[in-house]
């Protein structure tokens, strides 16, 4: 055998490098899993927002005059004129009126009186985890987009030339060999949930990678001006040109004019730039009940005259596709039934990621190269992420928010992984973390019941509380049962 001309690396170094590669793959798998898990929960962001602060007034509709009063009252409470200013009007999915003004969030009652600054710490934390992985701005968005692009890789769907995948499309073998069970679960979910998973991965990657793609497009086509890139889709962003105070744009007239011109739409967001100045602009986003686009954008003059629409539902196909990608990704196009379907399919996606790496560990073991420490770390991610989210939920209830909540999540997850590395067994890690998840959800619910007892039976609270209770029970059942089930030693094999 000819000798290699390359110097041979020390075996310890090579083993460490291989282990490093495995750890890198594991880390990416872990981050993908966290994005999938947080995304599954983020589908219910409306429910979470309502549950988190059930004291906020709810209403099924708001009059145009009350919408105008809401904007005026909110503006009067702010120290400076905000550049971006919006009033979210009640919809069947979110029956609240909320004002967004440069980072501040104010809730109004049905008459347009500002009554509270709603608590949204956990919802904000969860959405930031899913969209940015808590990394800064474009960096986080791009990294999550990278994970989405790789989650949508064709080899993950195993469709290319793998006829057995389709032939066995209805085959499930639970309860037998662990590897067969895991492989069947992985493959069946990969096949049957593939259309959903592909849509989620591609729209997620689109949302995530758009910013970095825009940098290249700006250099090539817009003299480096990134703000110009998305103008063909979303329209231009208004710049402050004249700060001179002026009467606020006529929101009730705009609302009424829109409803008379397009009675089929549901106006749900009044958006203004530099309100109550001479530079102010007014537009209203409206939902089309039978379209995927997240909204159509209608522009108005300050006296409420309808100027035209952006063309999100009837403009160029590209604009319609962009507008549809957000609703497709977040499952916000068909009310609660679609969100529930997205929830179930999201859990399936988490299981595809989890079982994928489980199979890899089993195969390694079968090939005589087990990696118990890494496997326990992976188990700690799979069951530790829900535990850390539950701890964050509890912490948010106790008043922790922003960076504190981010620290609680990542520190507790790191602690779980560190413990798993030295833990006695994989089963112990899995059971302990499931037990912790169930217990923490139960604690968060108990604290919530004490704090918001009077609102517990309201629509905003009851269904999400019940869902959390069921989740707590589901997490607790298996580990608690294992404490009471006596394991019988296998009978010795008969002598030959």
């Amino acid at each position, binding site marked *: 055998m000819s000798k*290699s001309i390359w110097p041979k*690396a020390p075996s*310890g170094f*090579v083993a*460490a490098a291989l282990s490093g*590669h495995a750890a890198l793959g594991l880390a990416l798998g872990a981050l993908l899993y966290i994005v999938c898990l947080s995304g599954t929960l983020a589908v219910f962001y409306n429910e979470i927002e309502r549950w988190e602060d059930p004291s906020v007034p709810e209403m099924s509709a708001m009059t145009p005059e009350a919408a105008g009063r809401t904007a005026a009252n909110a503006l009067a409470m702010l120290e400076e004129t905000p550049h971006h200013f919006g009033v979210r009007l009640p919809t069947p999915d979110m029956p609240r009126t909320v004002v967004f003004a440069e980072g501040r969030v104010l809730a109004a009652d049905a008459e347009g009186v500002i009554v509270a600054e709603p608590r949204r710490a956990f919802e904000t934390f969860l959405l930031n985890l899913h969209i940015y992985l808590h990394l800064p701005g474009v960096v986080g968005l791009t990294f999550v987009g990278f994970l*989405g*692009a*790789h989650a949508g*890789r*064709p*080899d993950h769907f195993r469709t290319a030339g793998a006829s057995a995948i389709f*032939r066995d*499309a*209805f*085959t*499930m073998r*639970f*309860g*037998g060999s662990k590897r067969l*069970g895991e492989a069947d679960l992985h493959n*069946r979910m990969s096949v049957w*949930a*593939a259309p*959903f998973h592909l*849509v989620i*991965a*591609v729209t997620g*990657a689109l949302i995530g*990678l758009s910013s970095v793609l825009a940098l*290249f*497009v700006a250099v*090539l086509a817009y003299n480096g001006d990134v703000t110009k*890139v998305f103008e*063909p889709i979303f329209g231009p962003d208004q710049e402050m040109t004249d700060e001179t105070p002026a009467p606020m744009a006529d929101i009730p007239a705009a609302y009424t004019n829109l409803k008379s011109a397009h009675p089929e739409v549901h106006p749900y967001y009044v958006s203004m730039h530099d309100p109550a100045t001479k530079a102010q602009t007014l537009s209203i986003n409206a939902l089309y009940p*039978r*379209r*995927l686009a997240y909204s159509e954008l209608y522009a108005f003059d300050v006296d409420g005259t309808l100027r035209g629409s952006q063309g999100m539902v009837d403009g*160029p*196909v*590209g*604009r319609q*596709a*962009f507008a*549809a990608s957000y609703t*497709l990704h977040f499952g916000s*196009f*068909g009310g609660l039934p679609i969100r529930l*379907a997205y929830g*179930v399919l999201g859990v*399936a996606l988490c299981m595809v990621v989890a079982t994928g790496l489980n199979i890899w560990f089993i195969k390694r*073991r079968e090939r005589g190269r087990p*990696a*118990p*420490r890494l496997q326990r770390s992976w188990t700690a991610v799979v069951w530790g992420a829900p535990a850390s989210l539950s701890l964050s939920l509890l912490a948010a209830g106790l008043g922790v928010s922003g960076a504190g909540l981010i620290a609680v999540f990542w520190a507790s997850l790191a602690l779980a992984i560190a413990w798993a590395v030295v833990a006695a067994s994989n*089963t112990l890690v899995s059971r302990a973390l499931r037990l912790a998840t169930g217990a923490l959800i139960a604690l968060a619910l108990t604290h919530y019941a004490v704090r918001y007892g009077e609102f517990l039976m309201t629509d905003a609270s009851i269904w999400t509380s019940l869902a959390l209770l069921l989740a707590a029970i589901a997490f607790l059942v298996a580990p608690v049962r294992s404490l009471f*089930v006596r*394991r*019988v030693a*296998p009978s010795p094999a008969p002598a030959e």
Partner: protein
Amino acid sequence: MTDISSTILALVFMLAALVLLYRAWARRRSPRGRHIFMGWALLAASMPVWALAGGVDKGPATGIAVLSLAALAVVLAPAWARGVRRRRTLAAGGPSDDDGEPDPPRSGPSAIPWLRRTGVVLLAGPGAFLAAACLTLALFMLWPGVEADRLAFAAFFAPLAWGALACWAVCDPLMRRKAPGIFIIAIIGAAGVAVGLVAAQPEPNTAAGIVQGVEAGAG
């Protein structure tokens, strides 16, 4: 036809398709091609009915979510029940799913697999990204449609192209094939971008081009 009756019809199409596929694939040794074809045809036929029921784009999106859910239920429910029964019979005494194995000794193969894996990671990550970005930007520059369509096409194409090239980088065992292949795609993309940039320049021999050039110079 009302939305409700269209939805029911779409559900019937979809369930019939699932039953046909289930029956065809249940005979794993000799699956029936006719049933498989009819199953897929019914699934495809249900999409226009979904569009009728829920809207031109919202309907099929709803249909796809329903299909995935229904199929998972068909696959998982009976298997889950079988698994629970089996676990109960195995009950105690069955093999534990615990690893319980010691860590392997720290000795490894030669450096080549390590170098190879590094190469694959670089090729599937930044390499495939650069090639996909070049190709996407070339298509954006050369595509004749309106700006919104070109932008949306680029935004959808980029992650798909990156995923496909990363898949090639990971799955193809021959480094001498995939590395030059991805490099050539990047070069083709870069050439397309260059052509697009040249095409976007104002033509100096036309009156408009001259005026544009003079204005640019004066500016």
